[in-house]
């Protein structure tokens, strides 16, 4: 992991990942194409964050997401995160901006995350 003193601006990413998660027998569709449930976005975001923070994520991770538009089955998404600040009360905790987008650069979900960098 990078030095905790130099994390601001650090960018991490995952993907492209093809959206193929099962819909579960519902009528999830837009433009006559089935869509991937938003839980897929959440799964990919947490996978990115667990990869970065590893065990710290399970004991101090926080993630809030707003879903903006669906991913259609077969489309790919990219997940990105960027460290934007240190926590005011805990210098070992970082705050991140998190988002995912499709291959056209359209924003699918956006949110904030935070986690202890070192316990």
């Amino acid at each position, binding site marked *: 992991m990078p030095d905790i003193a130099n994390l601001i601006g650090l960018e991490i990413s995952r993907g492209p*990942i*093809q959206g*193929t*998660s*099962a819909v*579960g027998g*519902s*009528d*999830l569709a837009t433009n006559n194409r089935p869509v991937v*449930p*938003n*839980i*897929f976005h*959440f*799964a*990919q975001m*947490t*996978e990115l964050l*667990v*990869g970065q923070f*590893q*065990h710290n*994520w*399970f*004991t*101090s*991770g*926080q*993630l*809030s*997401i*707003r*879903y903006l538009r*669906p991913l259609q089955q077969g489309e790919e998404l990219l997940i990105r995160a960027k460290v934007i600040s240190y926590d005011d009360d805990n210098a070992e905790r970082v705050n991140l901006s998190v988002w995912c987008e499709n291959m056209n650069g359209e924003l699918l979900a956006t949110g904030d995350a935070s986690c202890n960098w070192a316990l």
Partner: protein
Amino acid sequence: MNDANSEALTLIKAHFNTLEIGSSLEFDSIFSTADVREYARENNIDWPGHYVEQNGQSLVVPGMIFFRPAVGFGLGEPNPPLARAGFFTRTSRTFMQPIRVNEAVHFRGQITDKYLRRGYYYIVVDWTATGVDGVVAVTGREWHTLGWARYPKNHPKGG
């Protein structure tokens, strides 16, 4: 509105009206190795990968516990079929300790809000997941619709 949409909205509205702010539900769940492996495969997650403790115990993928509490209030049986297939519009999660594979997890959810907005019926659910040691492992808040049907934008309830 077409007939299918009208029918769905009638069922969704009826279900929405049965849900009360403050009502809660509790249930226990176990995430088996087979459950987690299947979820990881479907969602292209590298498991066990990072999801192993130092003692070799496998951990449940965080995204997997996302869905279960919401199922009880709107998205699962025995609720009306057309009310089940809603979509999540916001999610918030705080992780405090890992959830381990094959260990019981106690979920408690409570409806903290419900409303009709931009043509969709929504509920907001706060929930906790508590591990076998009695310590809260994860807390969360979900915002999701009941069903996919909505009032058209030109309908008085659609704006």
